[in-house]
């Protein structure tokens, strides 16, 4: 029985001021509607321009559950195409990345397409003469995603031809990407160090919720970060503090620390933790880096850039960015109960290698399928995915520090343990789910 399809009121009713219905996490019909509406109406992250530096370079990925290929076209612009041959439906670009030259060639029947998707040639073309082929969908080649925006080398797209503009969608939230890029003395990032891929048997939104959930680290991560602190305390006096301990220890900071860290909420479901302070604020300096930044930006501006130590920025719907540690996590929905988490890292072009080393160590310690911190979190998500099937309770609670006046406010900083950002995400969820229904 379809309960939500074509019924925007039923979808909106899943989100209340203080609680969210379990169907948003476990119902397959809701998931299908997310793919059809939410991931089409919002601006979704595709990839980074440094992954396709030369003409013909491509990178294959998904937007929602749609296979797409991001490619550097012959005019040097970046295009995003649905990765599907218009002939028999075969995925055209098969590798994760590579160079296709001036055109894609489908491996099944050798139809070829320019890197803007347009049909270049079909073998035995005569067989299509006087058939009416001109009126077929296939005549138009691989479908391009019309709305693509490259912002400081970060590539986003909106699958729905109509909808909110990139600028209106992200607004002030782009300041986190700006800060991450500005941390390079050359103002440039490169994808570096490989991507960690971690399969989660849970709904993608559990991961998004977790990014600004500041009341869980001292509880769920007592086993990992707490043990790291304990082991470190047993080290002989005078032992230099290892980088790994510097990265782990802040996870088990006090409630007070996270309250004071602050949280800021933007329109359309975006928001970030770490306004006044963050778990990334007290890392040791990298020798030579400060001097590079002063030379590039001047002292005042360098101080401003490096003083902004935001923790997690959620770009709704499905990425999280850490400026101070140059990480982007992408929560790729596969099914209502399955999500692929990809954790990407960036080199600050021109900066000391030590910063990349720290970023990669952080990614490994926190985001790998072998990460003890990851194990702590995934255990909670998978327990939730299983137990949400319960008929004993139907709602997930997001009431912490709710204030009815918050709905009229934007770009506001508040107590770091506020669940406002989770509520903000679900308000955006209801809006973009129903916009095209």
């Amino acid at each position: 029985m379809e309960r939500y399809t074509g019924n925007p009121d039923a979808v909106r009713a899943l989100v209340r001021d203080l609680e969210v219905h379990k169907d948003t996490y476990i119902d397959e019909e809701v998931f299908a509607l997310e793919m059809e509406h939410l991931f089409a109406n919002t601006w979704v992250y595709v990839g980074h321009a440094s992954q396709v530096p030369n003409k013909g370079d491509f990178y294959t990925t998904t937007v929602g559950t749609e296979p797409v290929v991001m490619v550097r076209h012959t005019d040097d612009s970046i295009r995003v195409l649905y990765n599907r041959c218009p002939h028999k439906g075969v995925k055209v670009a098969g590798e994760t990345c590579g160079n296709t030259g001036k055109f894609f060639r489908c491996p099944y029947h050798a139809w070829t397409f320019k890197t803007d998707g347009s049909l270049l040639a079909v073998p035995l073309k005569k067989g299509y003469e006087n058939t009416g082929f001109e009126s077929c969908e296939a005549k138009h080649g691989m479908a391009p995603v019309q709305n693509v925006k490259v912002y400081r080398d970060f590539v986003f797209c909106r699958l729905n031809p109509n909808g909110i503009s990139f600028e209106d969608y992200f607004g002030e939230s782009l300041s986190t990407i700006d800060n991450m890029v500005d941390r390079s003395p050359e103002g440039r990032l490169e994808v570096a160090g490989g991507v960690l891929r971690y399969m989660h048997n849970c709904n993608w939104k559990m991961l998004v919720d977790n990014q600004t959930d500041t009341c869980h680290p001292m509880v769920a991560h007592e086993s990992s970060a707490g043990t790291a602190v304990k082991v470190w305390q047993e080290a002989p006096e005078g032992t230099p503090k290892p980088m790994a301990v510097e990265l782990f220890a802040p996870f088990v900071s006090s409630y007070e620390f996270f309250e004071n860290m602050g949280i800021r909420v933007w329109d359309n479901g975006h928001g970030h933790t770490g306004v006044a302070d963050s778990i990334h604020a007290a890392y040791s300096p990298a020798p030579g880096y400060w001097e590079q930044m002063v030379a590039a930006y001047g002292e005042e501006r360098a101080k401003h850039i490096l003083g902004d130590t935001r923790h997690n920025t959620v770009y709704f719907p499905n990425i999280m960015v850490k400026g101070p540690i140059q990480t982007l996590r992408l929560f790729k929905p596969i099914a209502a109960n399955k999500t692929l988490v990809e954790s990407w890292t960036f080199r600050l072009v021109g900066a000391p290698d030590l910063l990349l080393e720290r970023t990669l160590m952080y990614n490994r310690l926190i985001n790998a399928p072998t990460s003890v911190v990851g194990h702590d979190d995934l255990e909670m998500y998978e327990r939730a995915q299983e137990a949400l099937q319960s008929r004993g309770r139907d709602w997930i609670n997001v009431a912490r520090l709710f204030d009815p006046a918050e709905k009229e406010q934007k770009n506001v900083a508040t107590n770091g343990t506020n669940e406002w950002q989770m509520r903000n995400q679900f308000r955006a969820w209801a809006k973009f789910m129903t916009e095209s229904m």
Partner: protein
Amino acid sequence: MSALDITHKTLTDFIYAEARLLDEQRFEDWLNLFTEDGHYWMPLAHGQTDPRLHTSLMYEDKLLLRVRVERLAGQRTFSQQPKSRCHHLLQAPTVESPAPDGEHVVRTAFHYVETRQDQQTLFAGWTTHHVVEDAGALKIRLKRVDLVNCDAAFGNIQLFM
């Protein structure tokens, strides 16, 4: 002057004994097999040469290994309630090269199964042990674990291969 008579057999016996400690969950004893500067390395990329400027699945020094071992025994380690178990199936190890710097390099193909609750996951790959003599005993300076599908998307891997 070496105190130990290190032969092909003592090296291969050492490799088998190490895997057995893991299968028997004797993690403290297993940890003691590593030198103080020892590492356990599980690369993320095929043929990876750099553990520093390329991400790995694991690149654990002794402190990080100790964190893992203590965590496995912790009362609030919820991802180990219930606990995982593991099983190693090793091919006969080969001693790779004479060791000019006192390291013995031993390569072993393996199948490894990790289980928890109703789930059983099979991994396959090769380990490369760099074994040295340390205070009259064989110790591991480096254990490198190359999974055949190192770049695949995995769920939790909670124990040691």
